[in-house]
């Protein structure tokens, strides 16, 4: 197969710009063949932590290295970024919309997110697609599609890879005959989708040649809603090379920074500050066993998402959620036992993984749950919500502990199992088997699967033509 020219589209940009662009810079381009010339990581920009970009970037990098891709163009929402940024064979194209349109777009995005994750059952948003806010969502998608179309006129891409529900309409709006892949990153359960949403959702999904989901159950549910769709289940992935084994000194230093004493035991939750991540459930479970295990501390790592950041949509839900969690901790008089670590650099996060006894994925619903894979990579057992994509890879008691997020006592009970006397053997077994399982979510596996997918859709397009 000849190397492909790929156009990727995500909402969250690979690189977030930390300062407003200087006058005139918004319309300019950064870089040259060697990268972000003249800009400093951590000062002028940073790579988006976690989420879709954390997964997609290593794959694109690998496919470029292996010659599967000739070049990649990445279109994303980035109101603070310049128009284009060159990064070797990758070019980032930044989309911006007027501030007054952002709130409408944000409302629709949050409503879809909330509905799919069943956050607010009292507000089903049945008429969402008729709302004024939806016209702004369509506006953002159309702006993005128009940019991609103009790039395609110039660069003649081989294939388009659109990521996540925020960009769902882009495929239909592109109107190209070239192959289009859509990756649905969040959970998919057709039973929670309002009747009034289904026709438009199906119309948008039908515009793609292949729809990729993260778990078998999502694929089955999607097939029920859209029998015409070609659906593929591919597990999300991490690059093990991105994770380091920090020194004991460094682990001690990071622990000390957050008030974790050498004798403390740590239960770790990694996830952005969002109600869907279920930190409240972890706090409740922790408070119910805190008396039994006085050395136990709960560490919550994570900040707001790109949507919540000033360089993104500026939605403030993460700050509200954190305040709510802090209030919960205060009410339970656990201020000295619960640590809000905020966003950590990867090296510090690695230290926290190494320092912890086990990790918890307490999400109400979770598209997949790569933090469990990260936990396994560091040789730590994970307690995993049943309502996650990764749960289908877990055999309870063998490579992880599962729990029902609606069962108030279930999480506490699983935490107890990993802390009580004689729990060492269980922890060791879960960690050992978990590490074996994690290989299904490594970049190597994804490289093969995604490479095959790209080859199939492009070849199919050639054959059909």
């Amino acid at each position, binding site marked *: 197969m000849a190397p492909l020219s790929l156009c990727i589209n995500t909402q969250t940009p690979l690189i977030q710009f930390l300062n407003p662009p200087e006058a005139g810079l918004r319309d300019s381009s950064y870089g040259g063949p060697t990268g972000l010339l003249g800009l400093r990581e951590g000062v002028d920009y940073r790579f988006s932590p976690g989420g879709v970009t954390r997964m997609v970037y290593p794959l694109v990098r690998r496919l470029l290295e292996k010659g599967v891709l000739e070049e990649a163009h990445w279109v994303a929402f980035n109101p603070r970024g310049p128009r284009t940024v060159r990064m070797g064979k990758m070019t980032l194209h930044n989309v911006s919309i007027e501030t007054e349109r952002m709130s409408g777009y944000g409302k629709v995005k949050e409503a879809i997110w909330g509905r799919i994750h069943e956050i607010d059952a009292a507000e089903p948003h*049945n008429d969402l697609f*008729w709302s004024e806010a939806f*016209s702004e969502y369509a*506006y953002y998608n*159309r702006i993005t599609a*128009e940019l991609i*179309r103009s790039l395609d006129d110039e660069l003649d891409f081989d294939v388009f890879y659109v990521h996540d529900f925020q960009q769902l309409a882009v495929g239909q709006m592109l109107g190209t005959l070239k192959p289009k892949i859509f990756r649905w990153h969040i959970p998919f359960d057709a039973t929670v989708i309002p009747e*009034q949403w289904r026709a438009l959702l199906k*119309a948008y999904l039908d515009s793609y040649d292949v729809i990729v989901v993260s778990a078998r159950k999502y694929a089955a549910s999607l097939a029920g809603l859209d029998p015409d769709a070609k659906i593929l289940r591919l597990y999300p992935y991490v690059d093990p090379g991105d994770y380091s084994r920090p020194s004991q000194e460094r682990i001690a230093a990071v622990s000390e920074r957050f008030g974790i004493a050498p004798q403390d035991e740590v239960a770790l939750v990694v996830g952005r500050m969002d109600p869907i991540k279920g930190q409240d459930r972890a706090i409740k479970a922790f408070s119910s066993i805190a008396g039994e295990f006085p050395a136990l501390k709960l560490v919550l790592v994570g900040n707001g998402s790109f949507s919540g950041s000033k360089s993104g949509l500026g939605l403030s839900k993460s700050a509200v959620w954190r305040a709510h969690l802090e209030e919960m901790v205060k009410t339970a008089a656990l201020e000295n036992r619960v640590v809000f670590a905020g966003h950590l650099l990867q090296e510090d996060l690695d230290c926290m993984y190494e320092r912890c006894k086990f990790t918890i994925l307490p999400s109400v619903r979770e598209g997949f749950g790569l933090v469990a894979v990260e936990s396994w990579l560091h040789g730590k057992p994970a307690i995993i919500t049943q309502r996650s994509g990764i749960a289908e890879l877990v055999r309870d008691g063998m490579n992880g502990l599962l729990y029902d997020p609606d069962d108030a006592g279930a999480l506490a009970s699983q935490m107890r199992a990993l802390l009580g006397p004689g729990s060492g053997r269980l922890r060791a077994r879960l960690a050992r088997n978990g590490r074996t399982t994690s290989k299904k979510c490594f970049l190597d596996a994804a490289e093969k699967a995604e490479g095959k997918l790209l080859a199939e859709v492009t070849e199919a397009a050639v054959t059909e033509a």
Partner: protein
Amino acid sequence: MITASTVLKLIAPYLSALVIILITVILAWVVSLVIGRLVRQSSPQMAGAARRLGVVVVALIGGTLALQALGVSPGILLLVIALLGVTILVALWAPLSNYGSKYFSDIYTPFKVGDTIKVQGYTGKVIEINPMTTILLSDEEQLISIPNVAMIRDVVVNMSPQAWKEVVIPISLAGNVDLPAFESDLRKSLAKLRLRLDRRFPPVLTTKSRTAQSTELTLIVMLRRPEDRDAVTLEVNKRLTEVLEQARGAKR
């Protein structure tokens, strides 16, 4: 010796012709505006055609009068135009009638590519509508080519499920119109009609073709009740025209 009166006599016909042309331009603009107001509830395609026709008629009359002012006999000119018209009509009758039918069927015939229709005893899925013919694919995988004129002259049955719900409106946007803003405004405007439309099917705007000069789009709205078809179509067209005018006024 050349006097002022000689010069005036010499340039008078040209001045008259110039004045007539200026008046014609103004009149054409007024006529276009008046027709636009009169047909604002028709489809934007039809309204555009009516306006263009009005402008052409005014331009022809104005042009003839201007030439007459310059001393050219209008009789000969009209005769040449008439003969040219008749020749074109006779020579290209079949394609022109198909092309014309396609134009009208685009606007008034309730089927689109993808629908299954029955016409002149043939049944098949519409896979192409070109300027001359509509191509059906039968269940036996035969290609059936129906001249577009038949779509206007004969009975066409759209057999697709829920076909009665669909109102399909072609839209032609100038290349310099801001498409995202146009779509956003159109959605806001059409949302006001949601009580008359099927709530499960929000409006869908599809790009059919695109050049630097224009973008051809198709708007599909779905009715809630069949008896509302006429009223809703008129209202959608009216709103569409308003948004189009607004978009033309605010080009990129």
